[in-house]
Structure formats: structure tokens, C-alpha cells
């Protein structure tokens, strides 16, 4: 069953709106820098991809939640507007009469980890409960549902770095199964001192701008952001056009063609050396979409720039899609963890519509161990299907195949 992508909202270090962010991927500038909102104490400085300053920086009475949920709400608001389901001010009334689910992936947004609260507690002080209240009220899916008055199922996926991809796949299944008419699906994550220290402790953070798939790669740069897709059943999409809710689409329409997910069952932090789970996930996604590997026009790879991820992923892509161009956008966005899969799925939709894919930022020299290179300059492509994939901590592998209707 075709599940429409009728709207997209996204923000990341490339831009506070999705259009700006997409345009930035095709430009040759990227500026990871030490985090502005917190300090780290390490012998080396580790750059991150932080959002530009905005009204999202601090909680207030209108958005009292954790930053992750504030980003999710901002992306959801933009996605609803893009889809025609909301105006500048509020979702249109008819939306509250539909079964609208919310499925959002995150990592930081599901953690009780307020560092100052814990420092006070550890010092035998008796800290106030405001940080705990904020955490308890900040489940990203619940917040988005509450803000937009949506009454369908709510689910926050915490599958580490594949969370955003998995959330979109689950939202797609909700529509296919007839549980929902619409789903706001995606991912959101904020930069956080705890997570930055964690990745540095694992020795997979680079103190230079990251270089996905490059021979000299030396780790990832963390990032932050959110992306939400409005997924819509074909029936609702047709009905709302007939009832004049939405204007006629001006560009070809995208849809989720298929998804696949599988686990390495191998190691907590390292991918399976032969990419066992990734191969399974990719084959499942192709079968779900009922297409073959040679119908894939391009691949938006996970490409974190860690040694293990890029080796495993590159070898699988070389084997399964030897002629398909691929790239990583993390050289522009950093690794946005639970948001990454959603942002990359959103970028994939935008590129399918533009008929153009960007250079893989940070890549200059092929790694002989991979012997397979991402593209180094923007290029056009033929075909109407693209793949966006995520490999995660814990051995999760997830893939989305996104299609574009013929003109």
C-alpha cells in the first residue's frame, strides 16, 4: 500500500528551516565548532554541529519541555504547514477528526540525565524537582500529540542511531494496517554534554571536521536537529484533494515504498564485520518495496565517519549496490543520533524531487579497505527510488526505500 509523504519539516546545523538545510548540502561550507551551550573539559577540542541560535534555545512557558521536544515540535509545525494540514497559526480543525498518530525517534530525549540536578543530589543537597518534572513531561511523541491536539497512538522509539528511520517505518505500518489516517513520524535529538562525553569516552569522536568514508576518517562529530514527515494514507490524500483542503501538488509526490530492519546480534557497540544485519535489512526493504537493487537511483548512507561503521557499510554497499551512487550528509549535519535517520529520509525526498544529489562532504581519498567511494561532486541521476539507511549502536540496522511518482 502506498503511503504518501505529504509534508516535511526539518532543522539542523545547516539551517533552521528545511529548504535552507537542503540548499546547504549542495554548498561547500561547513563549520563544526565547539559547543556553544555547554563546555567540555578535554585535552582536545571536539567540534559539533549545533543549531544556530534561535528562540528554541531556552524553554519558556509556551514550550517548557526539554530541547529535544522543542525541536520536534518545531519540525512538526513546519511539516504540517508544508502538507497543507495547518495554517500559520494552528492545525486545521479537520485534523483533529482524523486518527493521527505520532512516532518519533530519539536518544537524548528519552533519558533522565540532568547533570546539575545529579551533581546537587550527589552532594547530599535536596534539589528541586523542576528538572524531573521537565523530563517527565517531555516524551517527544506525547508532546507533539499534545501540542497539535492529536488523538492517535504515540510512540517514542529509542533504537539509538536508527531511531528516526525506525519511527518512519513504524508510522508507515500504522497507516498500512489502518490504525491511522495520518502519522507525524521522524526523529529529534539535542546536543548534550552527557552524550558528548560518552562518545568521546568511546574514542569515536573526531577533533577535526568528520570525513565519512575517507581513508583518513577518525570518528564522528555529533550534531542536533529534528525532522518530521507527514505520512498519509492514499485514501485521505485523495479525499482532502477532493474537498479542497490542499492545493494541487506542484511537484511530483514522494511515498514510502518499503522498509526493512534487522539486528546483527553480534556486539553492543560494533557492527557485524560482514554486515549481516544490514544485508538482511536491505533485502527486507527491497522485498517490501517489491523492487530490485538495480532500481535504486542513489543511496543516502549512514556514513558516520567512524572506522567500523564506514568499513562495514561501505563493503555491503559495494557488494549489493556496486553501481549506485552514494553519499553521507553527516559531513554537513554531524551525527544527530535519533534524528539522523529522519533527517536523511527527509533529505532523500528532497533530492528525489530535485533530481540531484550532493557531494559527500569530507571525503577526498578512497579507503583501500573499502574500495568503494561516495560521490565527490553534485550530480543528477535516473530513477524514481532511493535508499536511506541507518546502522545503530546495539546492532540495529534499518532501511527505508522512498519512491517518487512519475510526472
Amino acid at each position, binding site marked *: 500500500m502506498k503511503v504518501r509523504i505529504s509534508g516535511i519539516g526539518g532543522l539542523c546545523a545547516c539551517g533552521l528551516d528545511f529548504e535552507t538545510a537542503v540548499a546547504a548540502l549542495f554548498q561547500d561550507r561547513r563549520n563544526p565548532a565547539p559547543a556553544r551551550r555547554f563546555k567540555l573539559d578535554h585535552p582536545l577540542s571536539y567540534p559539533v554541529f549545533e543549531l544556530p541560535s534561535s528562540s528554541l534555545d531556552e524553554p519558556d512557558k509556551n514550550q517548557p519541555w526539554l530541547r529535544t521536544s522543542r525541536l520536534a515540535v518545531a519540525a512538526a509545525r513546519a511539516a504540517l504547514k508544508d502538507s497543507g494540514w495547518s495554517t500559520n497559526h494552528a492545525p486545521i480543525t479537520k485534523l483533529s477528526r482524523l486518527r493521527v498518530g505520532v512516532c518519533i525517534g530519539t536518544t537524548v530525549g528519552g*533519558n533522565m540525565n540532568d547533570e546539575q540536578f545529579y551533581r546537587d543530589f550527589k552532594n547530599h543537597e535536596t534539589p528541586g524537582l523542576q528538572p524531573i518534572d521537565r523530563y517527565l513531561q517531555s516524551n517527544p511523541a506525547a508532546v507533539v500529540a499534545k501540542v497539535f491536539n492529536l488523538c492517535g497512538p504515540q510512540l517514542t522509539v*529509542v533504537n539509538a542511531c536508527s531511531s528516526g528511520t525506525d519511527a518512519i517505518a513504524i508510522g508507515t505500518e500504522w497507516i498500512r494496517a489502518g490504525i491511522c489516517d495520518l502519522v507525524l513520524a521522524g526523529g529529534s535529538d539535542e546536543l548534550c554534554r552527557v552524550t558528548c562525553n*560518552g562518545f568521546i569516552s568511546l574514542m569515536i569522536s573526531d577533533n577535526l571536521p568528520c570525513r565519512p568514508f575517507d581513508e583518513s576518517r577518525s570518528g564522528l562529530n555529533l550534531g542536533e536537529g529534528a525532522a518530521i514527515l507527514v505520512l498519509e494514507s492514499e485514501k485521505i490524500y485523495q479525499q482532502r484533494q477532493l474537498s479542497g483542503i490542499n492545493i494541487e501538488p506542484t511537484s511530483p509526490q514522494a511515498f514510502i515504498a518499503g522498509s526493512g530492519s534487522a*539486528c546483527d546480534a553480534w556486539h553492543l557497540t560494533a557492527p557485524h564485520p560482514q554486515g549481516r544485519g544490514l544485508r538482511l535489512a536491505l533485502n527486507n526493504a527491497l522485498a517490501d518495496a517489491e523492487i530490485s537493487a538495480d532500481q535504486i537511483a542513489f543511496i543516502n548512507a549512514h556514513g558516520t565517519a567512524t572506522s567500523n561503521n564506514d568499513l562495514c557499510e561501505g563493503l555491503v554497499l559495494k557488494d549489493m549496490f556496486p553501481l549506485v551512487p552514494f553519499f553521507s550528509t553527516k559531513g554537513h549535519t554531524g551525527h544527530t543520533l535519533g534524528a539522523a535517520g529522519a533527517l536523511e529520509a527527509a533529505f532523500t525526498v528532497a533530492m528525489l524531487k530535485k533530481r540531484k544529489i550532493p557531494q559527500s562532504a569530507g571525503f577526498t581519498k578512497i579507503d583501500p579497505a573499502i574500495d568503494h567511494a561516495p560521490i565527490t561532486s553534485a550530480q543528477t541521476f535516473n530513477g524514481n527510488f532511493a535508499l536511506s539507511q541507518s546502522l545503530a549502536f546495539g546492532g540495529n540496522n534499518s532501511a527505508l526505500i522512498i519512491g517518487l511518482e512519475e510526472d
Partner: protein
Amino acid sequence: MFPLAINGIGPVGAFGAGMADLKAALSNDIKITPEIARIQTQAGDYDLPIFRADSKPLAEFIKPRKLRRLDNFSRLALLGAVLAVKDTATDLTGPQTGLIVTSAHGASATTFAFLDSVIDDGDALASPTMFSNSVHNAAASHIAEHFAITGPTLSLTQGSDSLTMALLSAGQWLESGRVDTVLCGVIDCYCDVLGYCWQSYHNQSKSPKPKPVSGPGEGALFLQLSQIEENAPPPKYGYLDRIELNRNAPPAALPFINTGIDCSNQSISESGLQTVSDSCKNQLQINLNRICGGLPVPTSFDLAAAASLLSDKHLYNRYDRQKTTAVPTTETICCWQPRPEIRQKPLTGNCYWITNHADLNPGK
């Protein structure tokens, strides 16, 4: 999507590990003695009973060397999973098994242990092992690796609705044919910060009446689920017949299990408590808090207790009398749990319907 066959159950809590221990606790055959923790709060010091779960039985199934890097959260989850699989003697290896693990708060104790390493030793000496195990899906990774499950794996968190969403996801995977079996579990662990929050929230409550609350608990519950196969023998624990979301009262015509009010670190208002009491006054209730403490996903052990009740035809541990009572003839039980975080009317909750016969659904 439903009904789903419940083939195996693996409960771990203050009552012990496995269905036999849970039944013994429900029958009052074993006495649960909670640990007492001294909690310092802004309003003074309090002795809080803590219902700890013990992961030591895991050593019967897995060599200690393989467990040395696992935190308590992952150990309890793995123990629940091992017990559920042992209960069915099913081989879950391969891509046709899905794994779903849910938790309200994740491995909070491990997150704070990671922060200990940062605070005590500095950013540059933060513990990579603690960080790895603090990630929400670490427990799922350990379980998948142990059983060589290469199907889809999902970790999710949705407050008190966590188990509901996990079961809905399991049903969806099975119905779509994505997998043949789902190992689905819920896990939450106690830590000192949660104890502090629990006591502080209760201090804030202005209710003049004592809350029917025992103290925070911890534990895991895993279920091995599959779709109903034609001509297959009935599953060991009956069927999960359906789930109803946002029901504003328990069904009037059926016995039901209620794990008790006020199971999380937030409390229902007195008016909400009265609403529940009024609507349930003619029905049988049991309160599991006494044997496992209050859990942030309060429905964690409802299903196990309901399945036990149906299979044994015996109702244990009545809420009001605390003694064993013969259960009226019933083929279906509804577990209804009000959402603890909802403080205003109408009070709503999710219903799980458990039945002995997939085709007999008097509540529908």
C-alpha cells in the same frame, strides 16, 4: 492484529524469578520483605520501602564471565527474557523472531553511574562501559546477541503506556508477517535518584489520606507471543485478545485485575481515586504493589497475574482482604489501569483483555 497467543512468560521482581515464584507470592506463600532506604528530602528524612529484584538466578543460564560488563538493568531484562524463552522451550534464533523491549525510564542507574565517572574523575575519564550500557537499547542488544535474534529489534519508551505500545507493535509485526514470534518485554530499575523523586513527589501531595502505596519497585516481564495457528494446541497462557486505548472506566460485566492505584512516582488525585473505587466496587481487584512495589509502567505484571488466574482458576491476593479466593467461572479477564499521570477527569486507562478461548469474547 489480535488475538495473540501467549506462549511463555518470564517475570522477575521482588517476588523472585519465574511464574512459580510469582504465583507463590500471589498466594501469600512467600513473604516479601522490602529493603528500607533512608531518603533525605527537603521535607525531612524518610524510610522508604524498596522492592528490589535479584538478577542472581541469571547465573543458572549464562556464565558469569559473559555477564561481567552488563549493568543491573540489562541483567534483569536478560533474566526475564531467558525465563520467557525457557517457559516455551522455543528456539528464537534467526530473522523470524522480533524483539521489543520497553521501559519508562531506561537504565537510569547506569546513566547516573556514568555521571559519577564524569563528576568524580573529570570529562576525560568518563566511563565508556557505563555509557554503552546507559543507552536505551543496550538491553535489547544483549538479549538479541544471547539468543542470536536477527529479526527486527525495537526499543521504545512511552511513560505508563510503554507496555501497551510494545504489545501493539508486536501485534503489528506478527500480523504483517514480518516475524513469526515476538519476544516482548518491559523493564525498569530502581536507583537512588528515583527513590528521592518518589518520596519528594509524595511529600508534595496535599492529600490528608494515606496513599495506598508501598514503595518503588523494579523488575522485568517478558512475553513470548505468536499469532494463532490453525489446529495448534492452545497456548500455555491463553490469548491476549485485544487492547483498548483510553478507556475511561473498567468494563462493568467482567472480573478484572487492577494493579493498584498510584503505582508511579506521580499520584492520582483523590477525586480520581474515588472515581476508580466507585466504578470498581462490585468487582474483584487485586493489588500487585504488595509483592513487586510500584513500577513506572504499572501494567507490567498484570498480564502475568491474569494469565495465572485463568490457567489456575484461582484468584490470589484480593485487594480488599489479602487472602486467597476462588475465582468465579470466567474465560476472560480485563486488566484496566488508569494512567497515573492524569490528574484531571475523565480518568482514562488502557485495557488488556486476556482470554482462554480466542473465539470467546464476551466483552466485545
